[in-house]
């Protein structure tokens, strides 16, 4: 379970404070959660708060689960280092042994299909390539929750299909929190939905209800 207690999050803009979450208290049961909301509603910020790299202005988020780093488009890599050394670096961060690291490097290299680019600096990558690398890397680690921000939409059709299948296999053993604007992906991957809208969070125990509500506010 993920528990939010009196969580408030705002950003200061030129026209005063913009509230993403306003004194939200909610218990989110475990499961594959699809996050819905319009652009700028605070979906990504919510993900970053769950991942522990952004913090509420007040209130607390409790959970005994482990969360992956928020998997977004291209974040989390050092531009001057090669894809391979970035993978090694993350393995070090998570305290993997030398053998485990070697296996992970092999796995990511194969999964991301980057070929020679795997040994080139990240700054030479296109955003699709970064997405592939990041996605492959996150699959190699075990978390209770995978936090995925739109990454499934990167890459060509073939890779998308492959990524979806890999993720489906992965969520047999872990849960996923997924941000996507593709309703089809959400339906496929998630059971429950969470709608972020005008400073509030609404939980739906059925993703279909969440999607209808989302379509309602988009009218």
């Amino acid at each position, binding site marked *: 379970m993920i528990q939010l207690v009196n969580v408030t999050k705002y950003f200061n803009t030129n026209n005063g404070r913009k509230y993403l979450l306003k004194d939200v208290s909610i218990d989110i049961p475990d499961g594959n959660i699809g996050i819905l909301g319009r652009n700028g509603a605070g979906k990504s910020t919510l993900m970053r708060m769950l991942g*522990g*790299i952004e*913090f509420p202005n007040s209130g607390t988020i409790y959970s005994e689960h482990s969360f992956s*780093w928020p998997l977004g488009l291209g974040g989390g890599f050092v531009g*001057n*280092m090669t894809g391979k050394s970035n993978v090694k670096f*993350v393995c070090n*961060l998570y305290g993997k042994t030398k053998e485990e690291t070697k296996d992970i490097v092999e796995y990511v290299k194969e999964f991301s299909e980057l070929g020679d680019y795997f040994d080139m*600096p990240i700054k030479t990558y296109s955003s699709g390539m970064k997405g592939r690398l990041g996605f492959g890397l996150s699959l190699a680690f075990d978390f209770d929750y995978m936090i995925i921000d739109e990454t499934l939409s990167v890459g060509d059709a073939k890779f998308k299909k492959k990524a979806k299948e890999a993720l489906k296999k992965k969520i047999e053993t872990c849960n996923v929190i997924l941000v996507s604007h593709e309703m089809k992906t959400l339906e496929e991957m998630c059971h429950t939905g969470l709608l972020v809208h005008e400073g509030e969070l609404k939980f739906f125990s059925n993703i279909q209800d969440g999607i209808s509500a989302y379509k309602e506010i988009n009218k």
Partner: protein
Amino acid sequence: MRISQGKSGIIWTFLEPFLQIFIFIYIRIVINEHSGHHISSYSYSAFMASGFIAFNMFRQILSKSMGAFTANKALFSYKQVKPIDTVIARVLVEVFLTSCVICIFIFLGFIFEVDNFIPKNIVMVFIGLVWFVIFSLGVGLLLGIGNFFYMSIGKFMNVISFILLIFSAVFFSLSSLHPTIREILLYSPLVHFMEMIHGFYLYGLDDRYVDYIYMLYWTIIPYIIGFWLYIRLEKRIISQ
């Protein structure tokens, strides 16, 4: 990191200090010839090299720690990485590079048998350098945090560091100056560090102008302010 720029990055990391030192030694010789000064009792090469390498390290530590948060923002995606780690990592890299440069200079000193390139008191020179690193890290952390929120601090420091280079007793010894100027310059902690290193390095010089208590204040106070700010602002640095 400079090293990761390939071969030319590595070569220039080590070539740069040599070129700079040679230029400064040359300028110093020209000035001395014109003003008709007699040659001092200590050797220029060792004097210049010891001061300049130390000062260069200070300057690099400052500029690297000021860029640390922005440059490593991508790494804050992993909650294991704290902003202060990036500053410490960069300082360690600079210390390592400086140690390499020092080793090369000592090696060259042996080969060309430069006059009194072996320090008078090697232990105290070492202590002076280590203390200087600790001091630089404190100032670097403080300025790093400042620069993250106010970009002007970085720009300002770029200008200041050049002025500091001229007035930090890197190229001259305090004993050669007029007492009034000496007193003014001694307000700068850098002058104390330079005098300490020079004083223990070269025969014919000593640490008579060095105020160790003053240096201690300048070491501790940046750490206190730096850590206080860091604890308050860490979350903002991560999430910005």
